[in-house]
């Protein structure tokens, strides 16, 4: 009997352990499956916005249940789109703040925009008109936006292939500002279609780019257009040539070179961003040992080369680039 008493005493002690008092776990099923309705209507905190003055538009709404929602903002003139999405019971900061950036390029212009709220499982859509009076100004170190044509210190090489179109253009494909660089042609004996060198001397009196010495903070960004139906998929190869030994020039045998090869297999404009320290030295597309100090020295970048490559066994290769920029701490937002 004594033993049994001991056993049940211990059981009682355990029973007295406190269990967290919670009615239920997870989101309320009522919130997930109830009838949809608005508790607060879909509104924007302003009808006119000037993104050049760092203004933003905040969208708000409150629903009767948790909804999967999407706000699509379309530029009526440019055709640009910004998409905000989420799953929540209400629309609130920070997931519903539009700071003038773009999801589907080209970038927004000073124009009228239509913001459409779509709720999964709800047939109706809800619209708001927003007027953009000033566009967002990208911040960072601009390597090339082609707005002023070719810089006299840039150098280029273009193969003498067929249908070569390697020039700055301003037409319906313009994505940011008015101009972009078009690179296309048929070169059936070499991978290289053409290249442009951007030396550090084009931007300052120094031979190197005037960039942060904290290489891990540095991002490289570029808008690249993919033709989509390109039989001969274009590759854009960026080469970052450092001057590790400080002799004022890149020396292949004693300096580092970091490379990024981008296979352009998409349709339309796309913003490509990557951290400088994520780059490797490539030889024929394969990672290889560098010849300098093997450290990413962003403040020692001497020259950037942009090469347009394509398999010579195939046909026409075509791409476009714009807005080649460095940013610090985070990728470029356009």
């Amino acid at each position: 009997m004594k033993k049994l008493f001991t056993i049940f005493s211990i059981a009682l002690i355990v029973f007295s352990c406190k269990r967290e008092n919670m009615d239920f776990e997870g989101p309320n099923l009522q919130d997930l499956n109830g009838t949809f309705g608005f508790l607060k209507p879909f509104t924007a905190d302003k009808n006119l916005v000037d993104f050049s003055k760092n203004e933003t538009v905040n969208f708000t709404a409150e629903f009767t249940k948790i909804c999967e929602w999407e706000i699509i903002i379309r530029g009526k003139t440019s055709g640009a789109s910004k998409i905000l999405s989420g799953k929540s019971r209400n629309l609130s900061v920070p997931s519903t703040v539009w700071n003038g950036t773009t999801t589907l390029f080209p970038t927004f212009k000073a124009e009228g925009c239509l913001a459409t709220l779509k709720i999964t499982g709800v047939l109706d859509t809800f619209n708001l008109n927003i007027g953009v009076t000033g566009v967002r100004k990208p911040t960072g170190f601009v390597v090339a936006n082609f707005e002023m044509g070719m810089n006299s210190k840039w150098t280029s090489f273009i193969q003498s292939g067929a249908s070569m179109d390697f020039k700055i253009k301003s037409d319906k494909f313009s994505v940011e500002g008015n101009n972009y660089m078009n690179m296309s042609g048929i070169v059936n004996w070499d991978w290289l279609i053409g290249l442009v060198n951007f030396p550090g001397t084009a931007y300052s009196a120094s031979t190197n780019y005037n960039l942060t010495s904290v290489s891990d903070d540095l991002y490289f960004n570029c808008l690249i257009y993919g033709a989509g139906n390109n039989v001969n998929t274009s590759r854009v190869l960026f080469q970052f040539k450092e001057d590790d030994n400080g002799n004022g020039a890149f020396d292949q045998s004693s300096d580092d070179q970091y490379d990024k090869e981008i296979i352009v297999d998409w349709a339309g404009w796309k913003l490509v961003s990557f951290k400088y320290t994520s780059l490797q030295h490539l030889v024929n597309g394969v990672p290889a040992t560098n010849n300098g100090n093997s450290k990413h020295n962003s403040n020692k970048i001497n020259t950037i080369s942009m090469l347009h490559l394509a398999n010579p066994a195939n046909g026409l290769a075509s791409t476009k680039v714009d807005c080649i920029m460095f940013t610090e701490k985070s990728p470029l937002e356009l």
Partner: protein
Amino acid sequence: MKLRLTFTALIIFANSLSGQISPKIKIIGGARSIIQNQDIQVFDSVADNKTAKAKAGGYSLIDLGFNIMPNKNTEILGMIRIKNQYGGFYGGGVTFDVRQMWLKGILADAVRYQLGDINLKQTPFTFYNHNEDNSVLQNPINHIQQEIVNYESFYKSNTWRQQGMSIDFGLNFAKHIEEVNFNGYLTRLNMTNFGDVPERLFGGGTIDLIANKNLSAQYNLSSVFDVTGTSLDSNSFRNVVQTVGFRHAHSWKNLDLTLKLETGTSHTYLTRDTLSPDLNDYFLNPSLSFDLPKSNFSVTVAYLNVGPDFRSPGAQSKRVDYQSALTQFGLYKNNQVDRPIHLTDIFSDDKIYRTSINTKIMAYHPLINNVLPYGLATFNRNGFYSNLNWKNVAKSININWAHYMLSEIRGQGTKALKKYTMSQVQLGVDVNKFIKLERKLKLSTSLVYQQTDRISDIDFEKVNLNSIQLATGLEWEVATNFDFMLGYTMLKGDGNDQISLRNNYSQVTDFQNYSSKETQTILAAGLKYNFSNKTYLGLLYQQFEYVNDNFTYDNYKMNQISIIYNLLF
């Protein structure tokens, strides 16, 4: 011809390895050869011209273990595996692996220790390899396949194969207490990558106080912890489970009564992550058994209460990883989707089985086990269960019946609680004893019925999911050592449930609607020649059919024929 030569050579070689090289070195291990031919017919909406519809192949392997006793207190085992895929001669397809290595011995004639690979288990709530995905008995053909899975995954008596060290020793007393036994272990769950993955260890132990043969008490500890400083992430995972257990036996006339209790707590947290929850909870599992040994009859009734925040990775890790890719026809249909894990894979695909402890909550199959997907350690369960065993005097009939009536403790997305019912019946009959046949003729059948219910006035809160698993088989020794086998297994599910989706902290973030109206069936037959109780040659055939009434384009049929030679020495 090449296949036949290899197969014959393997049999001769393996049969010749039957014993000792010297008194201190023994050779142990096993050998297996499988030749398989499989085909699949998918009833897709469009003709599938992208995935293969048939497969032929197989392998032979030998596990060669050297059991060395350098002195009377030390024993060492090293086992290598040589595996050759058929068609992979001249080096291609041949692999050499170390299958197991351990060293064990006795220190000062008092403390036993083992280093290397160790099979470990404690109690069902601390460290235990539950087998909840095999709640229905396998038919004889599937049983052969499952034995291979168990051998490959080192599943033996509900132990988990771990790598590390263990010690155990005991003390005997003259008064009050007969003996106290101690055992402890420390194993490595994963090694650091010197980046974001820390060194994760699993340690624990048991103190067993035996007052006399009728009264004993036990303390158990199991703990998973990251070693601080072994990764760049200073955040460390911690889980501590502590339990106490008691056993009191009492005999009264022909009746043996046994009262058992295990109860304990768990604490799970991350040391520096302020967003992570600090989970504390407890469980309670008392049981009372009535045993009539002379009548071969026993009944157990038990109460189970496992808190919703009770976390015990050592006891809640599942054998089957439902996220893993399948070996046979892993992609199917014209759009090359992943074929879901079905009964046939659970019985035969050893690649979907895990051998390690998982600190995250693993996925489960609602039709296979929705009531106790993590065994008795399944969290958020409260209720009673009972178990009944009976054998006739001649021990030619064996019946086992288990019944569970449980409910949630904490609702999922609603205050309404799900109620769970599960009934398991197993029946084995040695027919030869009734009709006085000398050779074996055995019938076995097993049935598992599960029901999950949540009653509510609101439609979207209602849950009703039913499943039935049935397995039946026949084993008949038609000639000396020559068995004929038949088997039928069926899983039928109907209804709906809402499965909780959890984040990395194991918090419920959403619910996935699960709806089922499906039937899975296995029809199997086989012939087996037993060279000894450890060696056989078998010819097995099975047909698996999956019929989903909700999504008929997912339906398929799979045929498989295998020749298996298996030897343990």
